[in-house]
């Protein structure tokens, strides 16, 4: 934990575990709410975390989700072991999807995951290596008010 950070926690996510899909994002939402962040920031972080968690569950084998909160920002880093993204620019295009029929039947896989993460973050960095995995760094700036 850096000097600026007031909270840091890591959560595991297992690929293919649809029954627990969203559990980490819900936990992150509760934690941020308890820290007194404003509801808009909490909602943006929760949606970005949920989309990222769903991507891990649908496409990757496993991931670590790291939540770091400072008075200036919420930083959610999702580091997965999985097939990676061959063309990040294409994956960031709204509507582009490689989802299976099963994923779509669950209400997901409309090709809005990464674009919606970008929409709900102030800064998004995506690094991926085909055959190894993907790392997302989601940054959401806060209004400076955090309690622990």
């Amino acid at each position, binding site marked *: 934990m850096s000097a600026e950070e007031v909270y840091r926690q890591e959560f595991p996510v297992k690929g293919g575990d649809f029954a627990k899909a969203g559990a980490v994002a819900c936990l992150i939402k509760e934690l941020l709410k308890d820290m007194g962040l404003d509801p808009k920031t909490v909602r943006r972080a929760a949606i970005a975390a949920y989309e990222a968690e769903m991507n891990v569950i649908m496409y990757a084998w496993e991931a670590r989700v790291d939540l770091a909160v400072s008075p200036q920002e919420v930083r959610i880093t999702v580091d997965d072991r999985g097939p990676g993204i061959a063309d990040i620019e294409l994956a960031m295009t709204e509507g582009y999807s490689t989802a299976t029929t099963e994923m779509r039947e669950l*209400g997901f896989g409309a090709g809005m995951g990464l674009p919606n993460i970008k929409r709900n973050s102030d800064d998004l960095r995506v690094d991926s290596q085909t055959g190894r995995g993907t790392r997302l760094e989601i940054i959401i700036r806060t209004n400076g008010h955090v309690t622990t």
Partner: protein
Amino acid sequence: MIVLKDVLALLDGELLTPGASLEVACPKVFASDLMSDVLTSAEPGSLLLTGLANSHVIRTCSIADLAGVVFVQGKRPDAEAIDQARAESLPLIATKMPMFEVCSRIAGHVQDGGHER
């Protein structure tokens, strides 16, 4: 704006989460079977109308701060999903009416200023 107790009456609905407050007023209504679209476009406090009945609907509503869910066309989530909604104080309503009729009735009610016709 529409209040959940009016939704229940208009749709001849069944409340799946007994004890949930029906006095909640929803400023917007969002109809979709795609949770991706709910996460992208539904505003906080909205009422969701959907034909998708699984636990991802409950979790999506919880994440996106939606006020309640109407399951259309006789669809019902399983007991586990209902328990999850109760734990999160998310009211669930089931109706046998199809999506178009549900949208039409709610739109008519809102256009009439919320008065019974």
